[in-house]
């Protein structure tokens, strides 16, 4: 079964069969655990389910009536969905990239946080996949994208690459989280041979999903605003902020609702990562800003529209300045010594940076790529109610998944049953 020579951790064939036999029981237990909880838990899950259903309903209308119910046009042909997709890919990548210090520095305390990061990655990948599915004009033809039965344009199309790496990433993280949970459930010590290689794979893969997603945009010569080599590094830097910031928030919520805590060390490591990554992100933004405006010309047209408005159109100006303000204030807060303590400074900084990056990488990056259009027409875009509903539904569903995963994680890691309210 195992090629390892460490005899004590090898499962004998009999035990392996046992592992397989116990698996349905594990799933059954998970199902039961995911639906057990106190009043607050049920209210929370009910609210998330309700929002998800609103989103599902809006999407069903969109499929039946056509994408005319969105505010996208032939000029701005991608909008809120792809914006949200881009952010969620970053969140997924960032969730795992903070695994690096845990293994690089062999930081044992970090492991309690790492599994939370993997859970965030799973939920975020599901959200980004859903964001692409709802953006398809013909979701009924989704199978055309499946290697083997469809017809994939590989290796030329960056979108094909993206589909492959995102699904691969989802499988890797499902395996890691699923394996660790299952072993804990069985009360066994996880065999490192069965998950550590996958952890390293997922770290490399995390960088790849965000790089490929950046290539999706920066490979297009006809869109000068995206066509910059800085895009992929900027994506990575901002993912190193949004991922850890989101995990800090999740850990805080877990501590309040379930008492699941890690030592203060890991959070401080995360904040150090954020400090460096956010600084790099802002430096790259400034560098981009300089090139766009000092040179001017066609390359600057979208940036002019985005930051200052152009020819009487100012649709994105409030968005981007909100993002920049949030990012800068968030960065300053992170640099304050009190950010290292458990307190409101840290939480405010996390929220500001997450919102700032969501705008910067979404509405502030995808939409201005289309304004002005390739024939230099200015057609503005702001999302329709249907688009907001669908996006809210995707987030609610993602958070619902995350809640279930965290509930299982907290239950097996703390050994307490039934009292957890994630």
């Amino acid at each position: 079964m195992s090629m390892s020579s460490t005899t004590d951790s090898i499962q004998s064939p009999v035990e392996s069969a046992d592992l397989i036999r116990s698996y349905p029981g594990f799933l059954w237990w998970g199902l039961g655990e995911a639906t057990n909880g106190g009043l607050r838990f049920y209210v929370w899950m009910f609210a998330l389910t309700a929002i998800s259903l609103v989103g599902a309903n809006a999407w069903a209308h969109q499929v039946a009536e056509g994408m005319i119910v969105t505010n996208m046009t032939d000029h701005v042909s991608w909008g809120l969905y792809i914006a949200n997709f881009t952010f969620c890919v970053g969140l997924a990548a960032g969730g795992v990239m903070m695994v690096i210090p845990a293994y690089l520095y062999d930081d044992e305390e970090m492991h309690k946080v790492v599994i939370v990061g993997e859970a965030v990655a799973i939920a975020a990948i599901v959200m980004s996949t859903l964001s692409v599915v709802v953006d398809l004009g013909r979701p009924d033809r989704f199978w055309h994208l499946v290697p083997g039965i469809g017809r994939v344009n590989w290796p030329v199309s960056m979108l094909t690459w993206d589909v492959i790496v995102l699904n691969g990433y989802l499988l890797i993280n499902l395996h890691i989280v699923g394996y660790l949970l299952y072993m804990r459930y069985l009360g066994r010590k996880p065999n490192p041979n069965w998950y550590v290689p996958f952890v390293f794979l997922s770290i490399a893969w995390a960088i790849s999903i965000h790089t490929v997603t950046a290539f999706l945009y920066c490979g297009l010569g006809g869109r000068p605003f995206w066509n910059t080599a800085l895009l992929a590094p900027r994506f990575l830097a901002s993912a190193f902020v949004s991922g850890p910031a989101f995990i800090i928030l999740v850990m805080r919520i877990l501590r309040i609702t379930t008492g699941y805590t890690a030592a203060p060390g890991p959070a401080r490591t995360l904040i150090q990562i954020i400090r460096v990554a956010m600084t790099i992100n802002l430096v790259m933004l400034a560098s981009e800003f300089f090139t766009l405006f000092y040179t001017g010309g066609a390359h600057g047209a979208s940036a002019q529209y985005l930051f200052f408005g152009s020819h009487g159109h100012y649709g994105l100006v409030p968005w981007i300045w909100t993002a920049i303000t949030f990012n800068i204030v968030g960065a300053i807060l992170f640099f304050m010594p009190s950010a290292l303590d458990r307190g409101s400074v840290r939480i405010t900084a996390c929220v500001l940076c997450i919102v700032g990056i969501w705008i910067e990488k979404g509405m502030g990056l995808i939409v201005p790529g289309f304004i002005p259009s390739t024939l230099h027409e200015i057609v503005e875009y702001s999302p329709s109610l249907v688009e907001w509903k669908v996006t809210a539904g995707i987030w609610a569903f993602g958070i619902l998944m995350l809640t279930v995963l965290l509930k299982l994680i907290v239950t097996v890691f703390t050994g307490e049953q039934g009292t957890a309210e994630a």
Partner: protein
Amino acid sequence: MTDDDKSGSEHQPGELSGPHLPILNQPSTRRTALKAVGAALGLAAFGRAVSPLWSIPENVSVDEFLQQHYKELSEADKKKVFERLEAETKENYGANVTISDPQPIPGVRFGYAINLSKCNGNGACMEACNKENNHHRGVDQSYIRVLEMSKGSLDMEHGTTTFDHTVPQDDKFYMPVQCQQCENPPCVSACPVEATWQEDDGIVVVDYNWCIGCRYCEAACPYHARRFNWEQPEIPAEEVNPDQGYLSNRIRPQGTMEKCHFCLHRTREGRAPACLEACPTGARVFGDLNDPDSDINWILKNKRVFVLKEELGTKPNFFYFFDS
């Protein structure tokens, strides 16, 4: 949701557990019943939420759902597909149409050129395109956009497509833009499912029944040449052009991409594109780039021609020139 015969005992980490379900200190039957009710209600709510989808089976037949990529269809398959599409057009639009599949003429490579000294911005080409290609009537869709440009600049930033005054204006010139049928088409590279490709005569086509509607090609095109069907096109029965090509002007399904195809259902049979035929100024020149005696080759040899956005390396087969 849960089995009644499971014990209510708690699962302890550290104990090798069989398929026991911990029902967590609750009277198992009561909690189980509540969960079952909750699950049923949730499923019912989900069914209600996605109920607009039930209209899909009416619009998308099993045959359409399972249809293979154009290049994988045998002649017999194609015949069946075309017959089905003709029947659907009859049913949905009340029009009798014939769907054909003209193939590229061996050795021919099409090129197009526009004389910007002659074009006066009258827009007859856009109108002809709309009619010929069975475009959605509600939004006056067309594969051509005519830019009104200021004399003294070729910068499209100083152009506009939304002019509605008499033409030509003295200080303006007019530049129609449509698919440039690039030799190195960024849209084809972008498509994740090979729903769009370049034919042997240089025309970039779309299999409207294979496109998934992701619109990556629309983002990739530097010439705003691609269009998305944001809704099902509406065309009165008497206005439907019955002479239709599978890869060209047949009525497109909702949620898919479309683009200019040099009227291949006409040009592959020796006729001119509809936009050229409609142009009252004689500004448009179309022909075979491989034929040394063609009009298009005469233009390329004798005029100072240019292509749009040459620096992007797309190598358009669409040229512009001025007289003298």
